[in-house]
Structure formats: C-alpha cells, structure tokens
C-alpha cells in the first residue's frame, strides 16, 4: 500500500492547522482521543478540547450546548456507538435544534472487523440519513478528508461523517480538486454502466473500472461522498446516459447508499440496478479486505456483475 496516512490523522492535522486562527473550533472525545488520533490536538489546544469519558449520549448533548454558545464542536467517537447510542441526541439536540455540531464517526463500517457486530457500524447511514436537517458524508481518501474537514469548519449545521480506521489507497492525486458538500464527483466518465460508491469503496470501484476497461466496457465511476443531501441530478443523469447502475458500499444493503440511489432511480428513470454491500446479517469476522471479498465487494466481483448486467 502506498499511502500510510489514515483519514483520522488527516482530520486532526487539518483541525490543528485551522484551530490556530479559529478559536471556536473544539474537539470532543469519549475516551477516544487515541483511536481518533486527536492526542496532538488535545495537547496543542487544551482549551479547545473536551474529554467526556465513555458517555456517547453526553458527548453529543454537551456538543449541542457548546455549539449553541457559538462553538464549532467536532465530536470524535467510534461510529458504532456515536450513530446508535446517541442517535436521539443527534436527532433532537443536533438536527432538530439546528446546532452546528460535526459528528465524526471513527473506525466506521467494518474497521473493527474481528470485534463483532457490537463494533461494526453498517446501519449508521440508514439511521442518520433518515433525520431531517442532518448531512451525511463519507470521504474516500486522505485528500478528500482534508478538503471535507476544511469545508466542515465553514458549514453551518449538523453533519455526520464516517471514516475508517486504517489508511486507504488514494483515489485522488492531490487535494487540489473541487469538493462541495452535496455534489458528487465523477471520477471516470463512461457510457455503458455506472458504479456509484462512497468512502473506502470508491477505490474498489475505480479498480473495477480498470478491469472493465480492459474488457472493453466504458464504465462511469461516481464518488457519492455526500449521502445526504444526495446529488440526485448526477444519479438521474447516470441512469439516463448509461442505463445500468451498481452501487458499492461498506454498509447494510438496507437503507444506505444503494437504497438512496434506488429511491431516486425508481422514481425518476428506472434502470437495472444492483446493490453491493453487507447483507442483512451480523457481518463475518475478519480484516476489511477479507470481509469485503466475502461479500463480493471486490473489483473482480463488480467486473463480473457488470458484465452479467451488460449481457442481459
């Protein structure tokens, strides 16, 4: 693997830089400063750091109070707990009360692959995207994480972000591109089929595209980094122009990216659609790559699925 920098470290580095001139930026941890890579921030800005202990309901409530008082709190806590234990605080104190809280779900998806379902977060997109007034973002690599973090500091409103634990391969050459919350990025253009991915699966979709290209297939790859507000226009365009879509996500096939895409496709321009993700079961134990391959979230399987769809 080329890249050795995890997205969580990028968030810390970016906030360290921005907090120097923006004293309203605050970071909160629930005994999670180590796993969030926020140790350096806590050391550099003790007055802008708050430890709450292992209390995920409390971390969101306190952040809402801080935000209401003009602060820009970044809550860093494992996605599995943050998106479930604190969901009522997210719904009421953040979304409904319209407080400017950024919820950073760390070690998301199946990052804690061997620790079992208690530590997996593959229902988080389903619950967070159902809450009005909350944006939901999954950055694909370290460059996107940097651009997203900069955007979050100036974004007014509640946002749920999910990142993985380990470094991921780059999908961008640099951070020098247009990142807009709610605007999908077309990574590869194509006309036969579209792959729509988010977060760590964008890399897999790009690898599948390379394989499909060798097989003579023109494949479009869309990085849907913002699950909500969803870039519906880009989805409808892909349905209309390529006629087939495969979604690829590190999430249950119920209620996540695939479901969000399906809601748009079926109402605006129905085309054949396949959803790749974690099935409705406690995910099998293993390293991310092993678990992905087990469930067919791999470049090879996407290629085969695409070729199947093209034959139909």
């Amino acid at each position, binding site marked *: 693997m080329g890249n050795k920098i995890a997205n969580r470290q990028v968030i810390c580095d970016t906030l360290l830089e921005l907090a120097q001139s923006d004293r309203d930026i605050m970071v909160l941890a629930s005994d999670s400063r180590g796993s969030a890579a926020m140790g350096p921030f806590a050391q550099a800005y003790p007055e802008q750091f708050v430890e709450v202990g292992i*209390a995920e309901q409390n971390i969101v*409530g*306190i952040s809402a*109070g*801080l935000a209401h008082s003009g602060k820009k709190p970044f809550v860093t806590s494992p996605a599995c707990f943050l998106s479930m234990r604190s969901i009522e605080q997210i719904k009421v104190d953040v979304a409904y009360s319209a407080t400017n809280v950024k919820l950073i779900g760390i070690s998301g998806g199946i990052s804690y692959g061997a620790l079992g379902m208690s530590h997996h977060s593959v229902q988080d997109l389903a619950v967070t995207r159902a809450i009005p007034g909350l944006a939901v973002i999954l950055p694909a690599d370290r460059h996107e994480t940097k651009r997203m973090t900069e955007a979050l500091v100036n974004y007014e409103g509640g946002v749920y972000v999910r990142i993985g634990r380990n470094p991921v391969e780059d999908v961008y050459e640099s951070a020098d591109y247009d990142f807009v919350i709610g605007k999908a990025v077309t990574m590869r253009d194509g006309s036969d089929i579209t792959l729509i991915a988010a977060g760590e699966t964008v890399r897999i979709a790009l690898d599948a595209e390379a394989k499909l290209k060798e097989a003579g297939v023109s494949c479009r790859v869309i990085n849907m980094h913002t699950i909500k507000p969803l870039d519906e226009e880009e989805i409808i365009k892909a349905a209309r122009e390529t006629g087939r879509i495969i979604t690829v996500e590190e999430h249950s096939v119920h209620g996540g990216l695939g479901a969000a895409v399906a809601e748009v496709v079926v109402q605006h321009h129905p085309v054949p659609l396949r959803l790749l993700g974690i099935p409705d079961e406690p995910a099998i134990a293993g390293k991310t790559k092993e678990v992905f391959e087990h469930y067919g979230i791999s470049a090879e399987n996407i290629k085969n699925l695409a070729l199947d769809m093209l034959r139909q």
Partner: protein
Amino acid sequence: MEIIELKAKAAQIRMELLRMIHGAKAGHTGGSLSNTDILTALYYRVMNLDPARPKWEDRDRFIASKGHAVESLWCILADRGFFPKEELETFSQFGTRLIGHPNNKVPGIEMNTGALGHGLAISVGMALASKRDGRGYRVFCLMGDGEQAEGSVWEAAMAGAHYKLDNLVGIIDRNGLQISGSTEEVMGLDPLDEKWAAFGWNVLSIDGNDMEQLVDTLETAPTVPGKPTLIIANTVKAKGISFAENVPHWHHHVPSDEELARALAELSAVLAGYQQEGQVR
C-alpha cells in the same frame, strides 16, 4: 419584582395556562402548575435577560429539560414580551409554533427539548462555553423528578462536577408524581440529595412553591466555588388548585368547563389577596 408581586404573577400565570390548556383541549397541567413558581422566580427576578434581545450573548440560559411542562413557560414568555400574547390561542393547534414542548423557533427558547434526559448535558455544554470564553452567564436547567431515572442525567451530572461548573444550576421539580404514580413506586429515587452530593454537586433542598425560598436560593446560586449546584425544589403537582393537587391523572388532564371555573375562582381569590396585600404594603 418584589416577592408579593411575584406571588401575584404566579397566580396570574396559573390562570392563563389553565385557560390555554382548556382552550386547546391538551396540555401537561400538573407539571406546569408545579413549576410555575420556579419559572416565575427565574423569569421575573433572577435571570439576566432582555426580551428585546433574546440572543444577547451574555444572557443567563434556561433549559427546560422536563420539556413537557411547557405551558407555564409559554405564558411567561408571552407575558414578558418575547412574542405576542394573542399567539397563546394557537397553543397545540395545527401549524402552530407553540407546540407541546419547547421549540427554538420561538424567541426566548434556547433548545428543543422534550426527550427526557437531554437538558442537563446541553446545559453542561453551555456552562462550559461560558467558562472557556470567560463570560459570566449562568445556566439554569429544570428537570423533572421522574426524569431522574434517565441514565443520561447522570452522565451529565458527572461531567458538570468534573469541569467544576460553578455557573450551572440544576433544579429538580420534585413533585413526587409521574404519569404512572408516585416516583418512589415507579422507580425509587431517594435519597436523591445524597445521590447528587455523591456526584460532586452542592445540593440544596427547598420548598419549590415558596416564593421567598425560591428567590433567596436562586438569586445566590451557585453558591460553592468549583461546584455546580443542584436545587431539589419540593413542589406539589397541580399546585394552586385544591381539588387537583397531588392527583396523578392531572399530569395531563384537561380541565372540564366546571373544573376550569372552580380553579379560576380559587386562583382569583388568591390573586386578589396578594394584590390587596401588595397595596397595603
């Protein structure tokens, strides 16, 4: 406002909230009547606020964690001029902003509450921001006694003491009743004072329907440097109506025409007494 005026004001608010609940055919009558004296003391005497500037940065903050007892708060905010009094007629009606819980689309309401066990954590965040920014404002958080069964209350209690928030005042409307009956039967809370003291709070226990005690305690709170203060305000549910006091189903009972008339007659007599006493003084 002087004590006697505050007492008269509380009687007037009770009459207004009963009319409002009767008109809307909905409301949390018992809890609103038990907390009326607390809110009257806060909004007419204790808190530093300016109805013309509801978002003034240095205002004292009030969080109604027991959000369901909102009727007294709506009547008080309207009376203090945060919004027009006529709007009270829309309470609980289609499309209103005066819903059955605090709604921060209404001037004077800080946060949307209603899900119990949320308010104290929010208050901890506000008090912490006040401290970190070196501002002087205080944060008052009103909780229910039934609400004390929510685990999130105690997460926030721990954090309030840990961060030495001596600008934070928690108030428990200790009326002893919740929707299913006595709090001690539903889920025992006592010794409530010892629990809060063990969590590191300065604990005071007062008669929460006694205006002198309320003003004395709230005006000087928080009283111990380095500690948040918790006031157990011992109240009577549905206070002020002889035939409703301490009757559990008045939690959200809507008075009938006859009950309303009797209640208003009782409160009018009390109000007249205070007004007379005020003039004599």
